[in-house]
């Protein structure tokens, strides 16, 4: 007999190490009290002279460590393969770092923007978004963010995809003009000379010479390109250009595994150069490429120099950028952790004015949670109703017949779940076995065949059948330990059949019902494949939506939030069951 939770006479009177420990502690406490008269002085000592308490504690600790080490493989296995993945999945229901990580400058700039004002954010935000999205597009992170934000606002996915390509156009305006002035602006080396240290540029030039020489002599040349180093003082003259260029140099080195000496800089760098030339003064600069820079400065100051307004340029890429809702969404979801997924999971959404219910025609999860609970209860009760007589029969029949019957119960249990579910399709559909028989018997007209599948009824029938063994087996193992003599005794004392069953037999079988119900209910609440196949539209469960969000829409955050809620509901029900019925009353076996 095994119980879920120890309730029997398990605490035997045999002494355990813990007892000894407590005794030692008590003894020690007594020792430390002021002694009256001449006691047998000093603490109790072990054979090796250490105080008994300490030596015992050491022995116990070693024993505990040994026990722990023995279960360590299992413990680590369970932690790694069960607890950790579940915790990781549940954590996703609040995790939202992606916005902050991908658009750090934009998030910061948006902090000063009042999202309820109905006005577009200022130029600082567009400027920050230009840098952020440009960088994200280079690192190919922008579309990922787009699909994340598309869960909240339809259309953001393509907005980000388009912007990744479109943002290049802004810098092209400046690049074209600089290039018309001096071809060198569209080449890699002049930029590197402007931005890099003299040493690194010299090293590169020497490397080029060596390579050319090797080529002339038809020799192999495998020396790596010398590393590029940024010049410190360039940041004083061209602060924004230097920052953008250093990002570019890092990217080229780490991602492209190339060198800034050989790659033309991003158009972002060119835009920043224009801004530096517009706002700053380069007349005092006399480092490398000073001529080129000063000529460009003169061009920028001339009246025919064409400029691009950032906000207008964003609007040209996609007019959605001029829609405040896009910026509201970014701002709303900028914190690293969000309750947005949980709000979604209960048919609510975040708005600038706080959480609000979704439109009537988009609510679905509340309905599905209720339906899942209701149908799981119906399935549990139909399992009880069907399983009780079977288990009773199994426990009262002679062994040989009972064994045969047991095989009949277990046989479907060993058959594939999909086969059993599909078999129900054949049985229940309108041209199926049951309808054919009913029509043949004349009970149902040929044009009035019963609809028994692709609805709630189909799910309830199929799942009751599939989960029945989980109810029969615990019931049977409890019932088989109820001594038949009790019922006989009740009858001999004058009880009717009903009274002896209801007052004597049934109360003893309740633990089996409890165990079976918990098993069936918890299994059915998370059931997925059977409702998917036979549930149609009215017989699907919340788990079908979770599966959809995991595998199709990839909204793992929402799936995690739905899963967390489902887990919480199960735990609450379990707790309620414990309070009302008492979990001690549950037996998985006699």
């Amino acid at each position: 007999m095994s119980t879920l939770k120890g309730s029997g006479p398990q605490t035997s009177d045999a002494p355990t190490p813990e007892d000894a420990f407590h005794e030692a502690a008590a003894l020690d406490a007594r020792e430390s009290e002021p002694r009256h008269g001449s006691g047998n002085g000093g603490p109790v000592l072990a054979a090796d002279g250490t105080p008994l308490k300490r030596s015992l504690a050491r022995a116990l600790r070693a024993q505990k460590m040994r026990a722990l080490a023995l279960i360590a493989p299992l413990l680590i296995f369970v932690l790694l393969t069960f607890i950790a993945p579940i915790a990781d999945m549940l954590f996703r229901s609040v995790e939202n770092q992606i916005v902050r990580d991908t658009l750090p400058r934009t998030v910061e700039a948006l902090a000063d923007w009042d999202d309820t004002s109905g006005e577009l954010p200022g130029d600082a935000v567009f400027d920050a978004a230009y840098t952020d999205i440009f960088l994200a597009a280079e690192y190919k992170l922008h579309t990922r963010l787009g699909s994340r934000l598309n869960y909240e606002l339809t259309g953001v996915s393509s907005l980000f995809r388009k912007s990744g390509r479109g943002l290049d156009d802004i810098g092209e305006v400046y690049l074209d003009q600089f290039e018309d002035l001096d071809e060198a602006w569209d080449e890699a080396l002049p930029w590197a000379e402007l931005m890099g240290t003299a040493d690194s540029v010299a090293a590169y030039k020497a490397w080029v010479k060596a390579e050319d020489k090797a080529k002339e002599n038809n020799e192999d040349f495998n020396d790596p390109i010398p590393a590029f180093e940024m010049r410190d003082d360039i940041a004083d003259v061209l602060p924004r250009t230097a920052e953008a260029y250093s990002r570019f140099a890092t990217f080229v080195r780490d991602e492209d595994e190339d060198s800034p000496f050989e790659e033309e800089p991003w158009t972002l760098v060119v835009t920043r150069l224009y801004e530096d030339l517009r706002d700053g003064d380069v007349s005092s600069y006399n480092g490398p490429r000073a001529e080129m820079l000063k000529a460009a400065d003169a061009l920028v100051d001339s009246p025919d120099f064409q400029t691009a307004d950032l906000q207008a340029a964003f609007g040209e890429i996609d007019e959605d950028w001029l829609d405040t809702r896009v910026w509201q969404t970014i701002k709303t979801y900028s914190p690293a952790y969000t309750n947005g997924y949980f709000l979604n999971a209960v048919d609510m959404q975040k708005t600038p004015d706080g959480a609000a219910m979704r439109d009537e025609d988009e609510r679905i999860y509340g309905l599905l949670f209720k339906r899942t609970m209701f149908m799981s209860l119906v399935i549990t009760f139909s399992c009880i109703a069907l399983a009780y007589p079977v288990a009773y029969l199994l426990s009262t029949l002679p062994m040989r017949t009972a064994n045969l019957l047991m095989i009949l119960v277990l046989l479907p249990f060993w058959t594939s779940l999909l086969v059993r579910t599909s078999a129900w399709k054949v049985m229940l559909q309108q041209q199926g076995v049951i309808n054919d028989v009913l029509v043949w018997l004349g009970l149902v007209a040929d044009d009035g065949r019963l609809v028994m599948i692709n609805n709630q009824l189909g799910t309830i029938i199929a799942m009751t059948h599939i989960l029945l063994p989980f109810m029969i087996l615990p019931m049977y193992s409890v019932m088989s330990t109820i001594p038949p003599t009790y019922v006989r005794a009740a009858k001999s004392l004058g009880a009717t059949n009903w009274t002896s069953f209801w007052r004597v037999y049934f109360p003893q079988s309740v633990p089996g019902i409890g165990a079976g119900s918990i098993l069936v209910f918890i299994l059915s609440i998370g059931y997925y494949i059977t409702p998917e196949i036979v549930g149609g539209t009215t017989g699907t469960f919340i788990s079908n939506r979770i599966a959809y969000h995991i595998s199709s829409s990839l909204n793992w955050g929402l799936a995690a939030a739905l899963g967390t809620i489902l887990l919480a509901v199960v735990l609450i029900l379990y707790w309620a069951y414990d309070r009302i019925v008492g979990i001690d009353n549950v037996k998985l076996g006699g």
Partner: protein
Amino acid sequence: MKLTKTLLASTALTVAAAGVSAQDMSQDMTIVSWGGAYQNSQLKAYVEPYLEMHPDVSVAWDESSAEAVAKLRAMNEAGNITWDLVDVTAASAIRLCDEGLAMEIDFDDVLAEAPDGTGAEDDFGDLIVSDCFIPQIVYSTTFGYRSDMVPEGVEPPSDVCAVFDLETYPGKRALEKRPLNNMEWALYCDGVAKDEIYDVLETDEGQDRALAKLDTIKDQVVWWSAGADTPQLLADGEIFMGSTYNGRLFSVIEEQDQPVAMLWDMQVFDLDGWIVPEGLSDDALARVMDFLYFATDTQRLADQAKYISYGPARESSAPMVSQHAELGIDMAPHMPTDPANAGNTLLYNYEFWADYRDDIDAKFQSWLAQN
């Protein structure tokens, strides 16, 4: 204590052994596909010929294409990509490309030219919908109907709007349990011009309009979620007509000889093809590229049509489509791309659905769940 040590040691050994075998990959290739007749067509048309040319290579199949995007994302997060080549639909490929999970392909660089010397990129033409996606076939989602259940004295349906015409064509219909395609058909049959469908569907009113049209047949619809459902429902006589992939209908009609006929009107074209996961080791990548060069050339794509009625994605393959390998019938008239079948078609709008799928799906599911 000794026992624990032994246990720990053996655990460590197992882990180490797994690490060694996972690295030896160059002669092994794991290909992910859909299973069933489609995977079989790939096996016959190019995997088996390739293995004949390279006897020491071994191929393992994983029938996970339906969950490929989710699984690849999980593998990527775990930092352990176990797939070498994945067969997915174009929409999934775009998704994978967006998420940085699939490798960008330079078509002209890594794929074979057409026999007349046209570059791969031109040969695939408009079907290149993503930088990461090498199309293999064009398939369509279209309707099949029971030819023996057409009411007497009525012409068999030739117009997709027969789906919504319960008076002329009574009986149940099977539609896929998702908004894609259904919303387009509903709007089209509600009188929206074909080139305005997506402009209308973008708006809330348009979505409500499509759902209202679907409402008129809602109680007669069986909603399917697996491609095999409709063929089975048709074969059992459960439904009068239903949507599914044209290759499935081909096998019901020609291979199983059921009284079912095709309705080619407003079929929705979609693509299926390969993506290469991002982050493969160099030797695995080299093997995959070698295979891809062979498996996506003109002849191989044409060969695939011997086994399944999906149109090859290369323009140069179309004239080479021959007869079915077992039935010996001409395959060209069964291709969704055949001019006789492709009179009125719709191309899956990838960008629209990438944006609107989450939103419309929420509405659609909520609509479905209400009685």
